[in-house]
């Protein structure tokens, strides 16, 4: 088996909650709590979950844009978590990011030329002429024109800006792109354009994606494998088809049942989830999902279920399956 491009082991990010004048630490928000996964080269891993479940924090912790509390990240076999500031800076040439809000992620005072060539300058790639050519080339690749280089971000629409954001991420020929909800700020028609662009680019440039989103349809369209997060934990991870055809975790089942179906006569079979997502500052004991789970069992609020592979390539963290699993082994 070949080495995965990216290996995440036990990633944790706790944000301290401080109180009082002296800023005493009174607790933690467990934004990401012990998340592990691997990505092979050329693959797309989708990460889905409700807002606040820690999917963006996971993406940012991998790049150490947010310093993780614990855990290890291996990129091409090198441990990113122990890199010095300068090593990390150089490593970022190979890991790039596309951001959610195309209106906020481009410096409003720089024109497109400046925005796009800055990654090259920072990493000392090429001379002035080569950089200019590269900018023009990438603008064409993402479906804009080279004469747009002299314009400013506010002269573009949201979809166009997101294309610029993608072009910026591609400037240094990265191997891995972490896309943090790249289409959720866009209109549905534009979403499809940007998604198809990302797919085409992946084939042409052999890119690997981590695709973070809350829209299940979008994730299905682009991902080879999908991970579902709930309250900072990865609760199910599987091949895309298997997850959508046969979800195992009750939360995943509920999420998929909530996807609107374009048929007015369609009757829902599954009960929709009630209640809010609990606070990550004070997560429920045992399985974090037991407060909303329709299939809650007696000991669900006592023991934390582990993520175990129940079918080849399909892992789930739920006592429904650990029971079956351990009984089989007896």
């Amino acid at each position, binding site marked *: 088996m070949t080495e995965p491009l990216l290996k995440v082991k036990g990633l944790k990010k706790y944000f301290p909650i401080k109180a009082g004048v002296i800023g005493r630490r009174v607790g933690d928000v467990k934004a990401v709590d012990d998340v592990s996964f691997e990505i092979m080269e050329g693959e797309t891993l989708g990460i889905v979950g409700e807002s606040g479940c820690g999917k963006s924090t996971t993406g940012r912790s991998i790049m150490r844009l947010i310093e993780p509390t614990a855990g290890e990240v291996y990129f091409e076999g090198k441990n990113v978590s122990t890199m010095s500031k300068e090593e990390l800076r150089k490593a970022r*040439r190979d890991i*790039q990011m596309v951001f959610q809000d195309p209106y906020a992620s481009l410096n409003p005072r720089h024109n497109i030329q400046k925005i796009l060539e800055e990654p090259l300058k*920072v990493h000392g790639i090429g001379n002035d002429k080569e950089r200019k050519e590269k900018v023009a080339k990438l603008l064409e690749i993402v479906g804009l024109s080279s004469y747009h280089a002299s314009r400013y971000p506010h*002269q573009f629409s949201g979809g166009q800006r997101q294309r610029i954001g993608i072009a910026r991420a591609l400037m240094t020929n990265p191997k891995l792109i972490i896309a943090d909800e790249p289409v959720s700020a866009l209109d549905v028609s534009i979403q499809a354009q940007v998604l198809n662009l990302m797919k085409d680019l992946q084939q042409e440039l052999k890119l690997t994606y981590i695709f973070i989103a809350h829209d299940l349809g979008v994730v299905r369209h682009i991902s080879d494998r999908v991970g579902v997060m709930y309250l900072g934990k990865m609760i199910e991870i599987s091949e895309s088809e298997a997850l959508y055809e046969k979800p195992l975790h009750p939360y995943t089942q509920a999420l998929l049942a909530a996807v609107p179906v374009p048929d007015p006569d369609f009757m829902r079979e599954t009960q929709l989830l009630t209640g809010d997502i609990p606070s990550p500052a004070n997560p429920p004991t045992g399985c974090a999902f037991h407060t909303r789970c329709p299939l809650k069992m007696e000991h669900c609020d006592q023991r934390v279920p582990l993520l175990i592979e129940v079918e080849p390539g399909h892992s789930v963290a739920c006592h429904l399956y650990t029971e079956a699993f351990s009984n089989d082994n007896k």
Partner: protein
Amino acid sequence: MTGITPEIQLPEEKSKARSPFQDSLRTFRKSKVAVVGTIIVAFFILLAIFGPWIAPQGINEQNLKLRLLPPSSAHWFGTDVFGRDIFSRVILGARLSLLVGFASVALSIIIGSILGILAGYYGKWVDTIISRFFDILLAFPSILLAIAIVTALGPSLFNALLAIAIVNVPNFGRLIRSKVLSIKEEEFITAARAVGMRDTRILWGHVLPNSMTPIIVQGTLAIATAIIEAAALGFLGLGAQAPQPEWGKMLADARIYLINAPWTMIFPGLAIMLTVLGFNLMGDGLRDAFDPKMKN
């Protein structure tokens, strides 16, 4: 844009690429008040530059035969107690007042920006130390602090300038700090870090340019205040010294002749008022032009 097309359709005309700064400048030019302010300011700047060639007399050409003459065709603004031409002195005073205004504000902006950026970007104990320092300076009424500083350094125009600069540092420092705090949370700063930029490049290339607009506005308004403060210090005898034709000092010297020779006081006073008005109007115009909420 209509429908799902793989290529984004754009109007082919290569419309001009305008930076947000150029956009603001257009808004500024459309505002009548701002233009009037700018004209007044430009007028005084020209006076300051070409004063020696415009003024009919020097700053200290005394003629005791011509004491306290009312305005006439020979002496447009009249003469003072030493028979000096007030018109000439007011014109030549423009250079002093503007110098104090610009230099002190420039100094406060430089010191305040450096401290504010450090406090805002690095946070933690750096922020605590710098912010408490600002708090201490702000605890004094500004004119009192300026008087204290000038008294300690000795009265002169240069020390007055220095004092005004120091007094204004926390205003700019806090402004920059708060702006940096909000800018550094912007996604394009995270994007810059994700690309692999060093802190220094992010700070000077991205954070600072985006924090500058409120400084330009505040700076213009602060020049007006600085001119008034310089005049006040001059009036108290702590700023410009005789025979420098500083407007505040001229007011102080003319105080006792207010009843008999009001022109000795009116014209320097008018000069102060007009300059301050000019800078204030210009500052207001700049604020409107740079305020993103005013734009569509």
